[in-house]
């Protein structure tokens, strides 16, 4: 890589470079680092802190994958992408996987040639309004000015929602969450619409969150998940099962604190299989036996990651809701490790 960087800088040619071929897993191992496409800044999901270290819910998933493949959560590198550049970054091989609140849709899966490897957050598009507006339902928003982030599925949902309810609105397209927030707080738009999680995250950062309310209507399904390039099934499996391992770990009560204990062997064969003390799951995936253990140790299980970054103890304060374990009435459900 360093050579291509150097020669590229000299504009010698465009020939020597790493390949974006089919075997992403081998590339990642050879490179010793995992490149993740991330949001360039969304509170709680992905943002660099003052030291330039990326943090957040989506970031944690990347770190888990890095830990599973390379054994080191810090081996994940983050490439900030915008809604517009994210798919190209993935398709061109600039990133190995994309975890950027990306909605799983048919056209993205089929037409844009990506493979979604699961859902790390079940979301839906909602509306946030100031309480002072006295609006209690999205159906009352006829004629309102609505702030939307462009380049996402939200603007299509919004157009459809207002059209089917025979209402008019004034869209204010906005590039980043920070700008949307600025406009919304200044009253330049009456309503801010985006994924409900984003709304909660945004509201949490307000000076007086209590003055704003998120309307009950959720107008779309937004399953957000990690995605990889189409046609590289081995790599897709690694990402898919890393996410599953995190979810399963929560189900079986494997946490970052008791994992060392459990890794010595337990009575539950499924825990043993996940943690690599039994069976050859890691080998099947082309990883080390303790891949899942590393992934869980990176940031904890799914529940821990959730609580640490966006859960109710954080300023963002999202309830688990749909993202609770299936046993608790949520949708997070890992297929068996068998």
């Amino acid at each position, binding site marked *: 890589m360093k050579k291509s960087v150097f020669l590229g800088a000299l504009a010698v040619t465009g020939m020597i470079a790493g390949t974006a071929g089919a075997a992403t897993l081998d590339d990642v191992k050879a490179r010793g680092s995992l490149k993740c496409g991330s949001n360039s800044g969304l509170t709680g999901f992905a943002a660099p802190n003052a030291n330039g270290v990326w943090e957040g819910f989506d970031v944690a998933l990347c770190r888990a994958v890095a830990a599973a493949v390379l054994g080191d959560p810090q081996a994940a590198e983050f490439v900030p992408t915008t*809604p*517009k550049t994210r*798919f*190209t970054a993935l*398709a061109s091989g600039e990133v190995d996987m994309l975890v950027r609140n990306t909605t799983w849709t048919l*056209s*993205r899966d089929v*037409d*844009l*040639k990506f493979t979604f490897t699961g859902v790390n957050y079940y979301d839906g598009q909602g509306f946030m309004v100031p309480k*002072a*507006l006295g609006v209690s339902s999205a159906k009352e*928003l*006829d*004629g*309102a*000015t609505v702030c939307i982030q*462009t*380049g*996402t599925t939200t*603007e*299509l949902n*919004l*157009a*459809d929602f*207002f*059209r089917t309810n025979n209402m008019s*609105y*004034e*869209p*204010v*397209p*906005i*590039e980043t969450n920070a700008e949307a927030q*600025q*406009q919304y707080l*200044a*009253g*330049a*738009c*009456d309503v801010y619409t985006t994924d409900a999680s984003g709304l909660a995250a945004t509201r949490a950062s307000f000076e007086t969150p209590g003055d704003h309310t998120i309307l009950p209507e959720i107008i779309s399904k937004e399953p957000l998940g990690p995605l990889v390039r*189409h046609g590289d099934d081995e790599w897709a499996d690694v990402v898919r099962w890393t996410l599953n391992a995190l979810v399963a770990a929560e189900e079986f009560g494997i946490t970052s604190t008791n994992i060392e204990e459990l890794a010595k062997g337990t009575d539950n064969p499924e825990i043993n299989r996940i943690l690599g003390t039994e069976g050859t799951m890691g080998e099947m995936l082309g990883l080390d036996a303790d891949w899942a253990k590393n992934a869980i140790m990176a940031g904890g299980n799914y529940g821990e990651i959730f609580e640490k970054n966006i859960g109710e103890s954080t300023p963002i304060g999202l309830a688990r809701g749909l993202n609770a374990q299936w046993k608790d009435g949520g949708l997070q459900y890992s297929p068996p490790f068998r």
Partner: protein
Amino acid sequence: MATTTDPKGGSFRLSMLLYDSRYRSATIQIVALIGFLILIGWLVSNTVQNLAELGKSVGFGFLGERAGYDINQRLLDYDSNDSHLRASLIGLLNTLLIAVLGCIAATVVGVIVGVLRLSQNWLVARIMTVYVEMFRNVPVLLWIVLSMAIMIETLPPPSAFRGEDPAASMIVSDSVALTNRGVYVPEPLFGRMDEEGAYTSWRHSLGDVHLFGDSPVRFDVSLDLVAILAILIAGLLVSGLVKHRADRIQNATGVRPRTWYWRWGVVVIPLLLLLWVLGFYLGKPELRGFNFQGGTHLRNSFIALWLALSLYTAAFIAEIVRGGILAISHGQTEAAAALGLRSRRIMSLVVLPQALRVIIPPLISQYLNLTKNSSLAIAVGYMDLTGTLMGITLNQTGRELETVLLTMLIYLLISLAISGAMNVYNNSVKLKER
């Protein structure tokens, strides 16, 4: 005998292609052309190969598909059921609008500032210098986001106009509202139909003519506007005739007849009459529901972009104007002063016309820059060509190659059109040398 060939003979050796100056230039050119073609071929074959690998096909069929998104500022009718092509057209018109208005504003501000920088008033000249340096040395993108932030943060939201004792109020006898969603100004309207489809008075609008049926380039022509333009042009023509006659009389007798009331009258009176017949009135904006309704809404994204682009470009134009004025030799000014012209007349009659020759070429490139910089609209959510075709359309359809190339092509055409038009103008004001 080593050789018997005659050096001037017709025999041709390959090395002559390189060493004979008769063929050399042709050789170099052909090599360059072949190199260029190979480069193009290389790029195309790479593209084809890459696209095949990604499983994508190239085609412009997506332009006919349903766009699905809404655009707030539209000069022609559009809704989310229209095609991507229609959406791009709306974006293109927005680009052209901001470019034209921006060029006009930048020229006006630039000329004023450029002249004021040479003002004898020390303070004014200093302020203008500060303005020019401030705007020239900070990126235009920063100015755009800053002016957007100023619009949003300093102006009151529409809700501030509500209630018994509103925090903000409309200006210009309650007809203009400055809000952080933009500026609402009265719009010109003509006699309209009531709910039953009957005109409330015999003075009413002529209506619209719809062109191109249902196609993506359909648009309505307002007959009122056509009538107004026709009357205006006719009035100006008559006014020109009057002036011509006055010139003739002045040439013949030396006395110029007073004609100003004629020249204004033939333009203004028919126009006022027509407006009266059409039932012209101003529709004032009113606070209803969430927003102001009625009137023309100049959105804050539009105003921010317009202000930032014009002020930024004006700083450059001011320097060009100043340079142009300074390039006129001092003797010209003194000669004009000796003729007894006053300083403002010296400027308008002697200095500026000459300075124009120096000013026009760099001015053209500033207009081009402004037009190109208008693509930064994307930073404030003004839906221009970059925001529609290369923005949402690109994102919703995933057609990077087609949309980006099409966008570049359109901008290229606009640029070529501007520089072509301005070159024609430049040739017409050029000093005709003997």
